[in-house]
């Protein structure tokens, strides 16, 4: 008998399924049950670019301590896909557990000596109970949730409550699902009692947090931020931003009296048209956005240059995935940083925001529209598949009702009538942001011709070198103004003085929190700073100057953030140590911890030897 892993509220369960088998909602139910028991979970969908038939996994990390990054490794594998059996079995930690369908006997070579088998005849139970093949398929998923509930001590009442909520609108399904759940639960109680030493114990570590995907939160943030026009083209992993915006608008933005929509959503013919519509709407004074991923960012480049140069507000959600080209379309990366920071031809530079979780995806989404209108320029919300498409446990979303939208510098008909001087590209008060007028403002005053061609301060066509330089210099100064309003970086200093700093951003945050706690436990001290926006705030440079060596942790091959720092701050590249994780899986605390410890120990040994 192999050793048996024992853990309460601290282990990883992974489900291996076949895409299109209806497992996703059952697996999500499992995660929600544990949350309802007051125990934090971090869940991640690992799915192929496919609709039906290919393997898919769902990983649930249960962490009583509240660590929300991916841990790595598997303690309990729910192996429901024969295609991936060997790989799935091989991935289990020694002493871990394998829950599988034992209807058909498998040769001993298919198992591992050091892994505990929990076999149950799932297919047989299904075939005995259900006639309809689709029901057999769907309820099989609920039966294994029942089995897990019994194995792990998940309160069946919690599961029943959740099923009741899930099928509120189709109550006839509640009893059927509860019945399937009980089939699995009772089977384990009768035949497999005590088979698993991994347990869930009620706790109070979830608090009032919510479980939401970043794309859903971003779509809602766009509603709260006052976006009225959304133009988009379907592309994984960004599609669910537009879908969420649609869903929330239908719920929140239909005029109750007239039944008319206070929003307009267009599925464009391609990404070029999508950004064109956003820019047209932004030019005309509506808050507009698109959501896309790397290939879409590539297609939109020409328009980004226009919006930068003609100074038109636009918000772009870039849900990053593995590139280049089609790359790994269903895997995560932070690899569009160059493509967005300097998007388009000629000299350009753009505002980027880096939310760390769904809560910030919501708030940055809403803020992005203020920044775009205040700065009259495109604003990129740099998310990724990990934040965007996975449900994360995050602080509840909040909104200040006293908050007004910052529509930026818009000259009104009254001001024009008063005789206020209007120059579309005239910096009247030193912040490098000119006033704009919206089409339709005044019959004879304030109109101007918008173009991507060079012009003077009064929007008159000009190929004079001095006019061109004057204009592009002002655009640079405008980004200095941007620094003063964009989210500041977050700094946390170590308990002891240290020559080491760590910079990170975006979805790396939960793994970083955990890695830092563990490193501190091991006596390794580092100051950390989370970058939240580009152009970088001055605090970032201060942080870099204050440390001998600065780790930059990012999820791409080419150290894009580190190079952006070197480029913008004229830092010596030797100051930086890049920690790069780019295999498409979310970065883990184990990876960061090991990599940092190795580098620091190496340095310490070197110093000792010298």
């Amino acid at each position, binding site marked *: 008998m192999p050793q048996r892993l024992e853990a309460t509220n601290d282990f990883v369960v992974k489900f291996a399924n076949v895409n299109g088998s209806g497992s996703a909602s059952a697996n999500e139910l499992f995660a929600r049950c544990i949350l309802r028991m007051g125990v934090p979970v971090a869940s991640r969908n690992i799915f192929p670019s496919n609709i039906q038939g290919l393997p898919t996994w769902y990983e649930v990390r249960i962490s009583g301590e509240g660590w929300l990054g991916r841990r790595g490794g598997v303690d309990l594998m729910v192996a429901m896909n024969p295609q991936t059996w060997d790989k799935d079995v091989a991935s289990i930690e020694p002493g871990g557990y394998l829950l599988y369908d034992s209807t058909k006997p498998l040769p001993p070579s298919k198992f591992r000596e050091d892994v505990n088998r929990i076999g149950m005849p799932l297919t047989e139970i299904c075939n005995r109970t259900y006639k309809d093949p689709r029901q057999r398929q769907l309820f099989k998923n609920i039966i294994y949730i029942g089995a897990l509930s019994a194995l792990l001590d998940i309160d069946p009442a919690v599961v029943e409550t959740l099923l009741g909520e899930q099928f509120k609108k189709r109550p006839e399904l509640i009893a059927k699902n509860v019945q399937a759940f009980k089939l699995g639960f009772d089977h384990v109680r009768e035949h497999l009692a005590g088979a698993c030493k991994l347990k869930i114990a009620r706790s109070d570590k979830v608090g009032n947090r919510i479980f939401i995907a970043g794309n859903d939160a971003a779509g809602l943030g766009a509603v709260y931020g006052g976006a009225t026009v959304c133009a988009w083209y379907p592309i994984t992993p960004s599609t669910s931003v537009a879908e969420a915006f649609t869903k929330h608008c239908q719920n929140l933005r239909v005029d109750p009296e007239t039944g008319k929509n206070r929003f307009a959503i*267009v599925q464009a013919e391609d990404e070029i048209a999508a950004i064109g519509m956003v820019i047209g709407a932004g030019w005309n004074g*509506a808050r507009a956005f698109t959501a896309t991923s790397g290939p879409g960012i590539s297609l939109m480049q020409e328009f980004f240059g226009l919006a930068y140069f003609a100074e038109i507000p636009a918000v772009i959600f870039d849900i990053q995935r593995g590139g280049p080209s089609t790359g790994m379309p269903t895997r995560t990366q932070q690899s569009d940083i160059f493509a967005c920071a300097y998007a388009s031809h000629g000299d350009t530079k753009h505002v980027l925001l880096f939310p760390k979780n769904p809560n910030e995806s919501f708030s940055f989404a809403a803020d992005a529209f203020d920044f775009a209108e205040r700065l009259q320029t495109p604003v990129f919300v740099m998310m990724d598949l990990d934040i965007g498409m996975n449900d994360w446990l995050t602080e509840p979303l909040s909104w200040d009702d006293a908050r007004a939208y910052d529509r930026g510098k818009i000259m009104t008909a009254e001001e024009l009538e008063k005789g206020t001087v209007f120059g579309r590209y005239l910096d009247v008060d030193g912040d490098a942001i000119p006033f704009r007028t919206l*089409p339709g403002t005044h019959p004879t005053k304030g109109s101007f011709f918008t173009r991507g061609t060079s012009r003077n301060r009064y929007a008159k066509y000009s190929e004079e070198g001095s006019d061109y330089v004057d204009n592009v210099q002002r655009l640079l100064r405008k980004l200095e103004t941007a620094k003063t309003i964009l989210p500041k970086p977050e700094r946390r200093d170590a308990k002891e003085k240290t020559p080491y700093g760590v910079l990170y951003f975006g979805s790396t945050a939960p793994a970083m929190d955990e890695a830092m706690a563990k490193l501190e436990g091991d006596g390794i001290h580092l100051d950390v700073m989370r970058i939240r926006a580009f152009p970088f705030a001055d605090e970032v440079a201060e942080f870099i100057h204050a440390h001998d060596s600065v780790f930059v942790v990012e999820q791409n091959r080419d150290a894009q953030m580190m190079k952006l720092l070197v480029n913008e701050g004229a830092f010596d590249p030797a100051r930086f140590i890049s920690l790069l994780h780019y295999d498409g899986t979310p970065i883990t605390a184990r990876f960061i911890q090991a990599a940092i410890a190795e580098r620091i120990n190496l340095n310490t040994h070197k110093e000792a030897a010298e």
Partner: protein
Amino acid sequence: MTYITKPKLRHKGLATNELGFTRRDYEGSISTLCAGCGHDSISSALIQACFELSIEPHRVAKLSGIGCSSKTPDYFLGNSHGFNSVHGRMPSVLTGANLANRDLIYLGVSGDGDSASIGLGQFAHCVRRGVNMVYICENNGVYGLTKGQFSATADKGSKSKAGGINTDSPIDLVSLALVLGASFVARSFSGDKKQLVPLLKAAIAHTGPAIIDVISPCVQFNNHPGSTKSYDFVRAHNEAVNRLDFMPAKAEITVDYEPGTVQAVTQHDGSVLQLAKLHQDYDLHDRAATIKYLHEREAAGEVVTGLLFLDAAAEDLHTHLNTAEAPLNRMGAKELCPGSAKLVELNATYR
């Protein structure tokens, strides 16, 4: 079009329209196109149409792509906002602008390179979406700004100024617009203002995508013998199917015609189009028959012009999207932000 700098002084006797504006109030900056360019005639026709319709200049938004034609919005309606955007992408920019504020008149100005080559996709999609706009393609069959390459509307067998023969089949934007569901389709000739001005007025009054293909000769690169887009060729082969008189919504209809020779069509906004039929069998409400007719006449070497198709009851994109009557760009937090109490409720659904 304003080719020569004119003094700002206003002549006392200058005619004014119902709003008190003179024709000069609808002019723009000085054209930088070649003398004799067909595009300048189209700008002039637009100025006349807007002046005569008494449109407040700022109620128009002019959008264009890139090319000679796309420069022209600078040369008319100087009191209107204009947007010279990206090559081939005017339709998407116009669509977005229209979504933001449904109250303005949207004038999309493009050329044959802009619409039929790089922008063919966007042309097709803005038509099939039913964007409420006037889309003018100033069609000269040639790339002017890059000096004389064939465009995608150049007829097969036509000759370039340098002597080359075009071997590719032409793209006919009128036929395409018909297939894609445009509700107002016309073709005209920059040299025929009498035809063009009423067509522009009717298009402006139309709700839905109004597509006007205007053959507009390029005097520098496509006005030679062997070209099918030259002044001489179009004059010799122009076959108008009808003559249009445009009656604004509020006008009293006074003109008398012989019974059976005139068809009157009322548009959404109440304007009436009186069409003197030049070809007795021509039915401008029959999409399929129009397509067939065009193909037959064009095969015979004719340039068919006039109001070719009209669906006066068409709906536009805003109807399809069920958008609020008030322009979206005028809504503030009161109309758009659901507030914190709603967010508390929403949070509860994510637990």
